[in-house]
């Protein structure tokens, strides 16, 4: 019953000042619409760039890091000078010891989606007198495909041919163009320790990174071991993909306790692009927050104006038995109604903008603008819209509740 009178008064206020109500709601609409749209754009772009990254990098990489030679005179007491003479890289080989056990252990972990061994070989690609240096990944092509979805980047050929052709090779499109090599042509490779092999091109791929296309190739694990003149237990990296790539840093910390080798998450390996990502988030986040605040100020203004014009009404209401709480309730309802109307249309506006932008052709491997409907962003935007308008109405409403009717009546 009490709820009804207050609502009725709130509604009457809004309906008798339709123009102001619409303008204030429109402010919220634009604020929420742009807010959701901008955040969706950031999320879409980040997802797109992460996806592009995961085509060539695993979430976590375990490898033997270079260690420097120890000081000749170990540091004993505080203040003693430590002497290092000609520090050298001390590890004799960059192989991982007993990799099968590490892999088996990793596979038991339920957070891990894929584990694949890899041998990285620095080498030269030769065709006649043309030569390019690059890196070949010796892999289990099925595992590697599961991790990087190599097949989706193939311009020509098929990754499965590596299974039947032991000296098959998948090369980046940059290498193919530069060395003028076509599918099923032969290509010579020379490893860093001078082993030469004749390979057959079974596929040409194109990632979103032209630098990778110009250096990278995939070969069978056994060939890569031969290129390094090593046994079949030789591995340089273990690549790990986990369920939630964002949890990679925590997960790699966990793994560090289990192995003596270096464990590197993708965020640490790509510090530069991570900081770019953060900058982007902070920038667009603060712009859209500013827009939201402007919208909130619109609501604040309207409620404030209503209260200024309705001092007499507030005094009469209080005199006839409405409490300060009722007065707050009335004006909160007014801002809530404007907030709900404005936010609803804001959600629609955001949907429209996202739909429009996602249809824009940008070329590249993504083709269309990387943006999508993120229900969580819409939910957050909706809640934020309502909360902010409530807050914007609350401040002047408290002022209205404190109005002393006597002071108004004496005028």
């Amino acid at each position: 019953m009490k709820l009804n009178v207050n609502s009725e008064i709130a509604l009457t206020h809004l309906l008798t000042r339709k123009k102001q109500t619409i303008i204030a709601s429109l402010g919220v609409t634009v604020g929420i619409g742009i807010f959701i749209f901008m955040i969706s754009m950031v999320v879409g772009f980040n997802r797109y760039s992460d996806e592009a990254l995961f085509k060539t990098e695993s979430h976590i990489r375990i490898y033997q890091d270079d260690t420097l030679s120890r000081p000749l005179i170990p540091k004993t007491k505080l203040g003693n000078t430590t002497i290092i003479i000609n520090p050298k890289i001390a590890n004799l080989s960059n192989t991982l010891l007993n990799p099968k056990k590490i892999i088996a252990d990793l596979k038991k972990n339920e957070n891990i989606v894929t584990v694949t061994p890899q041998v990285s070989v620095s080498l030269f690609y030769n065709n006649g007198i043309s030569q390019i240096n690059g890196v070949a990944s010796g892999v289990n092509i099925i595992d590697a495909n599961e991790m990087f979805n190599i097949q989706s980047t193939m311009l020509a050929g098929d990754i499965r041919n590596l299974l039947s052709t032991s000296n098959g090779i998948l090369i980046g499109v940059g290498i193919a163009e530069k060395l003028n090599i076509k599918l099923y042509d032969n290509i010579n490779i020379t490893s860093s320790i001078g082993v030469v092999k004749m390979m057959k091109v079974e596929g040409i791929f194109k990632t979103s990174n032209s630098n990778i296309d110009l250096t990278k190739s995939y070969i069978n694990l056994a060939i890569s071991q031969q290129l390094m003149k090593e046994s079949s237990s030789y591995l340089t990296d273990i690549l790990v993909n986990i369920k939630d790539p964002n949890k990679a840093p925590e997960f790699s910390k966990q793994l560090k306790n289990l192995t003596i080798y270096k464990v590197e998450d993708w965020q640490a390996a790509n510090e530069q692009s991570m900081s770019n990502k953060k900058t982007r988030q902070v920038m667009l986040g603060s712009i859209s927050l500013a827009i939201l605040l402007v919208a909130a100020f619109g609501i604040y203004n309207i409620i404030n104006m209503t209260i200024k014009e309705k001092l007499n009404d507030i005094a009469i209401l209080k005199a006839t038995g409405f409490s300060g709480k009722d007065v707050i309730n009335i004006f909160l309802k007014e801002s809530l109604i404007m907030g709900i109307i404005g936010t609803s249309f804001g959600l629609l506006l955001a949907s429209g903008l996202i739909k429009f932008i996602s249809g824009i052709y940008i070329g590249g491997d993504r083709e269309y603008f990387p943006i999508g409907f993120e229900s969580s962003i819409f939910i957050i935007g909706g809640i934020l819209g309502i909360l902010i308008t409530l807050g914007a109405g609350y401040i002047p409403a408290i002022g209205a509740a404190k109005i002393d009717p006597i002071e108004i009546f004496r005028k």
Partner: protein
Amino acid sequence: MRKKIILQTKQISKYFYQPVKFKALDDISFEVFDSEFITMIGKSGSGKSTLLYILSTMDTDYEGELIIGGEKITGQKSDNLAAIRNKNIGFVFQFHYLLPEFSCLKNVMIPALKLGKLSPQEIEEQAYQKLTLLGIKDQALKPASKLSGGQQQRVAIARALINQPKIIMCDEPTGNLDSKNTSIVLETFHQLSQELGQTIIAVTHDNDFAEASNRIIEMADGKLINTI
């Protein structure tokens, strides 16, 4: 027959500090009895409105004590006071009457809707009845802002009656009314006090109006000078 006291003030004094310290009410002690129709007279500026605001529980900034219906009002919380006003006190203000955006009918209904004791249908019925009593039923559905001052004043009186309060306080309730409507209001007040047992405290300039009441209180310079 001993009369029951419905409202009592004990040594009420009030100061204004702006623009200079000024004693607007000086040691006011008096009693109002149940079902009494009492009028308050005095020169302009003698403190009638100031006293009425204190009696209405809206002004809490004073010295002394106010007791209504045996309950001490002085020192109560503002939300409590609002509830007491809603239930027990009907008020007609000097210049400020109605909510302009609502119909006359709604204006009369609002305090009852707030009280929430009756259904909206019953409240509407009662509101029509009060408007009929004051001779402005035909204006019921007009927005309050479209009425003349005198009509608004009568709607405001109807609103003061809606919750059947124990006490009705009026500040110059006939200030805008012609003699015909003044006599309607006078008649209504007598009827309310005699038949429904309601107490009426009315500030007035109109000597004929005062003469027609049960008792007159006169104020001068913030003091009660004469109670008949």
